[in-house]
């Protein structure tokens, strides 16, 4: 399994994302924002950070990077794509996922270990979880409030496209406590919390996040 991990100017979490891929017995392939090809990878992770300094809006400039044109085309053909934190913001700006991420409702940057409920276990990235399992992974973001219009929320809820939901106190004002969603096909997933920081109890709060990368392994092997 070869998994591309994109680095934009200002990306922070590409190294941990690459490490998570290796923990799942995959080969991590670094992709640069200026690349015009995906180097034959089986899947792509758009990691967290502050691409292009979060100028204009989070993800608004990254979405037009050359490598993202390749990602958009591949995602629309069914390639598994995961956006974490800033990566989720980029996928939303790129219209691969509906809605938008806005300033946290209490304005503070939130940095804490966060319980999530896994509600969709049929996406390319979540098959290893039990339905409604609760997992503990870090959340660290200032603009993580998920917003979408009523029709979009209904579409997501009615079709099981809410993949992760915050458990307990809503950390950022996200509509319906939404932490992560998928596209209709289930190959593209975006979430604000950081599974790649929770793959080993030595370095994270749990290893609950590793399941996402093992799920991808299953998806790629089956493809």
């Amino acid at each position: 399994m070869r998994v591309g991990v994109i680095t934009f100017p200002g990306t922070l979490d590409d190294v941990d994302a690459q490490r998570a891929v290796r923990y799942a017995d995959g080969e991590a392939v670094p992709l640069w924002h200026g690349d015009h090809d995906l180097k034959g990878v089986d899947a792509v992770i758009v990691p967290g950070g502050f691409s292009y300094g979060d100028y204009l809006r989070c993800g608004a400039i990254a979405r037009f990077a050359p490598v993202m044109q390749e990602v958009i085309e591949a995602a629309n053909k069914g390639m598994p794509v995961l956006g974490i934190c800033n990566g989720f913001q980029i996928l939303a700006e790129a219209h691969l996922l509906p809605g938008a991420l806005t300033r946290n409702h209490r304005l503070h940057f939130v940095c804490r270990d966060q319980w999530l409920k896994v509600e969709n276990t049929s996406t390319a990235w979540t098959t290893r979880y039990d339905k409604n399992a609760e997992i503990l992974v870090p959340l660290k973001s200032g603009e993580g409030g998920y917003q979408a219009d009523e029709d979009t929320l209904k579409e997501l809820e009615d079709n099981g496209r809410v993949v992760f939901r915050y458990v307990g106190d809503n950390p950022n004002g996200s509509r319906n406590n939404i932490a992560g969603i998928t596209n209709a096909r289930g190959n593209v997933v975006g979430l604000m919390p950081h599974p790649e920081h929770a793959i080993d109890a030595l370095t994270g709060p749990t290893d609950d996040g590793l399941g996402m990368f093992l799920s991808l392994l299953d998806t790629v092997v089956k493809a």
Partner: protein
Amino acid sequence: MARVVVDVMPKPEILDPQGQAVANALPRLGFDGVTAVRQGKHFELEVADDVDDATLAKIAETFLANPVIEDWTVRRVEA
């Protein structure tokens, strides 16, 4: 050259915590009577004369604003 102003505002139904924080600070500073504040963005573009209105609209809709959460206006002004 022409000057074009693009104003981008959060949609009315979208929570604007930054505007609320500004509104909440005003009474503490001794300014009474301001009942609400909405915070947006103001862009000033210097554009060549051959850039038409359709192109300006596209710039605003696809890049300067996010139509999911923001409204915008485009207007040409005297430089």
